[in-house]
């Protein structure tokens, strides 16, 4: 059924300061969580990793009312979406996570390292996780990508190649010392250290 052709998209508005009980309840409100920051399920294969960091504004102050969402391929580079024709039906790895930042602007996701996904020309992209950043004071969310340091494929990634060399590091999560696969990825909304955001 078709409705009359709309005269454009519905404009975005800020997520505001009070989204937590509806979107990122995390057991703190009388409402169930549809989404969490842990993407790993019992049957998920791949290298388990944690990505953690903080969100900062243009003054370097932490942003405690930010919502982060990630979207990623599985370890074989497939998305849990029927639009990805290679996706495995019934896989329990959904590839989506959501979290609200804490009082120190901090966040963490537990997930797996994604596999490589081809670009529209069939050229492999380096492993990456899609990131959407929402907050009070943001009228429209920002899109970014999380890449991983130590990845040889970063050097030939077609999207990283679009980014001025002196800003590329803002997109690369850094492996932390220690035995566990923990990566640090800070997000700077504005300023000298500003994270690269994409016009997608």
């Amino acid at each position, binding site marked *: 059924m*078709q*409705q*009359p*052709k*709309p*005269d*454009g*998209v*519905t*404009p*975005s*508005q*800020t*997520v*505001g300061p*009070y989204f*937590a*009980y*509806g*979107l990122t*309840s995390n057991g703190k*409100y*009388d409402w*169930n969580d*549809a989404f969490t920051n842990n993407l790993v399920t019992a049957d998920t294969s791949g290298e388990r990793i944690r990505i953690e960091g903080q969100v900062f*504004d*243009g*003054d370097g*102050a932490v*942003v405690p009312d930010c919502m982060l*969402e990630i979207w990623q*391929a599985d370890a074989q580079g497939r998305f*849990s*979406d*029927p*639009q*990805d024709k290679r996706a495995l039906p019934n896989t329990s790895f*959904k*590839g989506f996570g959501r979290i609200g930042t804490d009082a120190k602007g901090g966040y963490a996701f537990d997930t797996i390292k994604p596999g490589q996904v*081809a*670009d*529209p020309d069939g050229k492999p992209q380096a492993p*990456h996780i*899609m990131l*959407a950043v*929402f907050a*009070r*004071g*943001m*009228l429209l*969310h*920002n899109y970014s990508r999380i890449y991983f340091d130590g990845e040889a494929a970063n050097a030939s990634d077609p*999207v990283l190649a*679009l980014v001025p060399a002196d800003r590329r590091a803002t997109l690369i999560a850094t492996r932390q010392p220690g035995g566990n696969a923990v990566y640090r990825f800070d997000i700077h*909304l504005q300023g000298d250290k*500003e994270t690269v*955001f*994409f*016009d*997608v």
Partner: protein
Amino acid sequence: MTLVYPVQSLAAHPPRLSPAYKSTVKRSPSKPLIPMRHTLSELTGPVYGHETVRENDHDLTIQGKSEPLGERIIVHGHVLDEDGRGVPNTLVELWQANACGRYVHVVDQHPAPLDPNFTGAGRAQSDAQGYYRFVTIKPGAYPWGNHHNAWRPAHIHFSVFGHSFVSRLVTQMYFPGDPLFPFDPIFNSVTDEKARNRMISAFDLENTKPDWALCYRFNIVLRGRNATPMEKK
């Protein structure tokens, strides 16, 4: 089916830096965004459906021990793409203040009463035609600290997924004829009047339930056109 998402559609959105809304000043990018082609990463998106939405999640008036106070309303409409095609089976999340303009959120300090029977959160899944429906309470206006005597017009927050990660939308639904419209920098951050009007629900007498609840219609239009398969570009 592969959809395309022209970036021109984004022109309807507010500029990220809208100084009248003061919090945007330090939270908007100061460097240009980097244009890029959409890859499978952008063109796919999370799929959530019935397992995520419980039976009564769309009715915010029956989540407590008894009924919340305030004016009961029906809010319904279609999730559409830009060509007017329904976006089926997509998750619609909603959160809002209570009838007094107070949020359950711990940080909300507005000295208006909380309602023990109202959380203000709901979820629905659009049907095969993109149709969704909520039953809730009309939210009150509330003050905020942006400037002297600043009040937000009554609004309901919406979050919608759509067909891909780049069709993701978070917005606010307003009510027709609100006297606070001319004074609200968030509403007016959308500079085009026609686009602004797409955030205002329409009073829907036809679907108002006699002796029970007024009805408002709110169609949510997401990016994306079905017509052009990527392969033929």
